[in-house]
């Protein structure tokens, strides 16, 4: 145990991740690093969960293809126009930047929410990876709708996977990025192969048959009993906003602060169009085959094994791993904002242990969309606040980084904005009966931007008036 601790201290402890300072110019990375990282991150084992969702919810084929195209373009633009410019301008994490704007108070709550929800997301990836190993060991894992663990061996598998992921994440961005680079070119090939290989079992004998089979057998437009109907708008908004916390919420500042130029945000297109287009389509095909074979509650491992054999299982394990790694890394950064005196590697390891415990509960995978939705609802207004503070306030003649300049623990403008934006966007979600919380991310972002600018204007004007009064009183 002591040896392991010494090894971690020597290897991970020496890594400087610039948690509370700007990344120096000598440490910025080339475009290829980001392509590998985002491709690895967005080609996750959970693509085997989301692709089937569209099939089960009766989306029509045309809606799927157009919805994913438009949604993924909008998601990429959100990284290019919002997240990467903010990251490259400040070269700090969202956590540190928010602390400079809002003071310790808001950032503590935000970091806690982030740390927990990143941990939950990573736990879902571990659960997905375990579903693949369970098939190799002939162990029946939980289905997509099960909530509690039933088998101790299952829990043991989760612990092994979780701890390996946690240890890799402690080594920092460089190792995490290099690890993802290894698998990024290979994973899309497995998804594509699995999709192509299963087409004949749905009746596709020539490529010209594809659209007809897609419309009649895969995305038939009729939901499975008990599921709501998905339209073009559902698919488009899902593709655009399922990562809204990362792009509009600016959580990916942690990654893109290492980019040489803001235009490197375009690297996200690789993740979107390979992971959230091709892989969702491929896993939709696999789900249709599973339904045809009478498997109505398939696990990601089952679907992958059916489509690509043992290589498919390997892909699910590694896809879960390459997504969980940067997620745990971000979670470690978030929690470190709460305890800056504790080394990041220790915090990352602790988060990894928490993630492993959470991963034992299949409910984490089953309810992943809900967790992502809550996360988006909380994170997008913060993204709007930070974006406005970096780019809009200086143009409007107001001071940025107010809490840092005034040595405040609480910036009231940020509190007011966050509360109003979350309440406002939840109200919109409730009134319009949206299917997912993250559909309300757009109104949340817009409300956040407008309220923050107005509240800051009022706050800085009051401050100016009171300091003028003070000067007059001193003169008298």
């Amino acid at each position: 145990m002591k040896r392991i601790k010494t090894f971690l201290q020597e290897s991970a402890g020496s890594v400087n991740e610039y948690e509370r300072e700007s990344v120096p110019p000598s440490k910025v990375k080339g475009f290829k690093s980001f392509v590998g990282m985002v491709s690895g991150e967005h080609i996750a084992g959970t693509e085997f969960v989301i692709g089937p969702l569209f099939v089960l919810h009766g989306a029509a084929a045309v809606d799927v293809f157009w919805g994913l195209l438009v949604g993924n373009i909008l998601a990429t633009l959100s990284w290019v126009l919002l997240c990467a410019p903010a990251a490259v301008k400040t070269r700090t994490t969202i956590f540190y930047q928010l602390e400079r704007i809002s003071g310790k108070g808001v950032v503590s709550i935000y970091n806690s929410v982030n740390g927990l929800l990143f941990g939950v997301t990573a736990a879902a990836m571990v659960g997905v990876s375990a579903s693949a190993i369970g098939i190799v060991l002939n162990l029946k894992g939980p289905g997509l709708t099960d909530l509690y663990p039933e088998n101790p061996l299952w829990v043991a598998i989760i612990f092994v996977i979780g701890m390996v992921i946690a240890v890799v994440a402690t080594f920092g961005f460089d190792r995490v990025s290099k690890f993802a680079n290894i698998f990024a070119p290979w994973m899309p090939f497995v998804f594509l192969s699995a999709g192509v290989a299963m087409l004949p079992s749905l009746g596709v004998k020539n490529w010209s048959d594809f659209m007809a089979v897609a419309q009649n057998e895969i995305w038939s437009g009729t939901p499975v009993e008990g599921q709501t109907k998905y339209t073009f708008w559902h698919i488009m908004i899902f593709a655009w906003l399922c990562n809204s916390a990362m792009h509009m919420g600016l959580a990916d500042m942690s990654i893109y602060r290492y980019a040489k130029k803001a235009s490197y945000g375009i690297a996200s297109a690789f993740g979107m169009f390979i992971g959230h287009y091709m892989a969702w389509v491929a896993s939709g095909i696999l789900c249709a085959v599973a339904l045809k074979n009478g498997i109505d509650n398939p696990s990601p491992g089952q679907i992958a094994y059916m489509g690509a054999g043992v290589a498919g299982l390997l892909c699910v394990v590694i896809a879960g791993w390459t997504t969980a790694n940067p997620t745990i890394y971000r979670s470690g950064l978030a929690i470190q904002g709460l305890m800056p005196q504790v080394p990041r590697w220790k915090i990352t390891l602790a988060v990894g242990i928490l993630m492993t415990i959470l991963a034992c509960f299949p409910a984490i995978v089953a309810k992943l969309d809900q967790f992502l939705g809550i996360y988006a609802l909380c994170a997008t207004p913060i993204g709007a606040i930070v974006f406005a503070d970096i780019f809009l306030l200086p143009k409007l003649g107001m001071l940025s980084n107010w809490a840092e300049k005034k040595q405040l623990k609480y910036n009231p403008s940020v509190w007011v904005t966050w509360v109003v934006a979350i309440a406002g966007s939840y109200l919109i979600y409730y009134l319009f009966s949206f299917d997912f919380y993250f559909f309300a991310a757009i109104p949340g972002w817009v409300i956040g931007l407008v309220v923050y600018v107005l509240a800051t204007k009022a706050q800085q004007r009051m401050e100016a008036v009171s300091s003028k009064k003070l000067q007059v009183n001193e003169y008298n």
Partner: protein
Amino acid sequence: MNIIKYLLKPLSYVGLVATILPAFLLFYDWIPMDRYQQFMLWGSLLWIVTAPWWINKRD
């Protein structure tokens, strides 16, 4: 260095080809399902074993 350039890197690409090509061979009914899965596995292993030796070197 030459081993990486002239052996490991080409082997990695062979691995990638062996991961994607069998799916199309199965689609056109030139190979059976079990042979497709075997090719996929060997192709994947070839990539996983050889790629780490060169893929992160240029950065």
